[in-house]
């Protein structure tokens, strides 16, 4: 007979969202288990590994050990190759996800959460006693409250009644690798847009220090063909970094749709990529996942007591998300729909021409947006509606 274990809160998936949720729920005094499919969390890295100072500190203090490079400049390269540099962006970091993810799990364990690596959940079902049973090859895990943070696949959310399948226009099919090349600047992140490089997405170069970089790109699902992301990546690396050595090549998907509604059903909450909580324009998901995991963990800790869970109290999670980063994601989604869902090469080149000779120190995102939209009144109207 496989063993059955009982907890107050089960968290499925030990990425940033899940580990954060388990940490907060355990710190809130609850009996928590954290179930992870893989034997080593954070491997392989399927991520650009970039995060802004604000995105990180909204949820936790930065530990220097995670940081591979501190970035203060952003460079945008248009389809025709025009470069626009912003020399004074908010401080951002490229972090080592393997170290970061493992550290978060350690914090969850230190707070009292029980961690089960190499424990894939194959099904979830509600039992007569009101608890949810997560079935794994290592036995059953029962709890009245479950936080599902099982990533892009979001299998368990579907088993629990959500339709989380992504439309093609709401998915970036990605490929990434690590590149070593003398042309990599350790203080600058680069974004390359254009249908020739990464149709419906962009290519990025995020420095990892010592002349190395995380180089990757995303192709919007509607522009995909089998293997296109990898082919585009190889072409990009060859043209941008001729003769460079590339290793650690992996692929992955990034959800760029709206966040899943509802986020809570009965005693089950969704968080992170599983809930499609990602900035739709930039594809950035670490900060959103941390924030969602923190909210979900805190709310779950308050809602659970003794053997039960106040399901009504779990709704607070969606309320707080919807009035916080949820708004930002909705805006990013509208911008993405305007900018990336069709071939905008001529538009991006026009913007780049307008700014290519500007003083990098005087450029920032706001000034670029304002001057661009001043030339495109229709777009301006749409954007104003977003920020009303």
């Amino acid at each position, binding site marked *: 007979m496989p063993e059955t274990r009982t907890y107050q809160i089960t968290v499925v998936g030990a990425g940033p969202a899940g580990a954060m949720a388990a940490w907060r729920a355990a710190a809130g005094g609850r009996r928590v288990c954290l179930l992870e*499919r893989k034997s080593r969390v954070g491997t*392989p890295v*399927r991520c650009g590994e970039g995060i802004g100072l604000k995105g990180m500190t909204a949820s936790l203090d930065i530990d220097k050990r995670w940081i591979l490079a501190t970035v203060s400049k952003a460079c945008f390269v248009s389809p025709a190759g025009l470069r626009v540099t912003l020399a004074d962006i908010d401080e951002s970091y490229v972090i080592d996800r393997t170290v970061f993810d493992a550290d978060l799990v350690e914090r969850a364990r230190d707070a009292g959460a029980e961690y089960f690596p190499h424990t*894939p959940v*194959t099904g979830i079902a509600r039992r007569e006693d009101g608890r949810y049973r997560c079935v794994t090859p290592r036995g059953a895990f029962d709890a009245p409250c479950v936080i599902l943070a099982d*990533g*892009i*696949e*979001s*299998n368990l959310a*579907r088993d629990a009644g959500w339709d*989380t*399948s*992504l*439309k*093609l226009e709401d*998915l970036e*099919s*990605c*490929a990434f690798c690590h590149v070593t090349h003398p042309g990599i600047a350790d203080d600058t992140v680069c974004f390359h847009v254009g249908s020739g490089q990464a149709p419906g997405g962009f290519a990025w170069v995020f420095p990892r220090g010592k002349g190395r970089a995380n180089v990757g790109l995303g*192709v919007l*699902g509607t522009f*995909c*063909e*089998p*293997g*296109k*992301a*990898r082919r585009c990546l190889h072409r990009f690396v060859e043209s941008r970094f001729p003769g460079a050595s590339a290793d650690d090549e*992996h*692929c*992955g*998907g990034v*959800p760029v749709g709206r966040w899943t509604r509802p986020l809570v059903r009965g005693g089950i909450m969704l968080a992170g990529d599983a809930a499609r909580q990602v900035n739709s324009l930039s594809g950035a998901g670490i900060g959103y996942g941390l924030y969602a995991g923190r909210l979900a963990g805190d709310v779950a800790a308050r809602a659970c007591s003794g053997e039960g869970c106040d399901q009504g109290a779990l709704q607070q999670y969606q309320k707080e998300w919807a009035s916080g980063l949820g708004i930002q994601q909705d805006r990013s989604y509208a911008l993405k729909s305007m900018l990336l869902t069709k071939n905008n090469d001529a538009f991006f080149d026009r913007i780049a021409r307008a700014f290519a000779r500007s003083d990098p120190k005087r450029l920032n995102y706001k000034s670029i947006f304002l001057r661009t939209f001043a030339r495109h009144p229709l777009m301006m109207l749409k954007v104003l509606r977003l920020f009303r």
Partner: protein
Amino acid sequence: MAAKVDSAACDACGTCVSVCPTRAIRCAPEVPVVDEGTCIACGRCVKVCPIAAIRMEETNRIS
């Protein structure tokens, strides 16, 4: 017809799973497995696979 994963080429990233409209693909637990009975051969998974590790194949299923 049904989708078929080339397990030697697959990187187990889960992108195909996220676009499947019928829940026919699951990571089990690493390389995804397609349930031929549920697959409607819509081709979305084939299209979005970043490394072309899925293709459509004839099946022996009587439809």
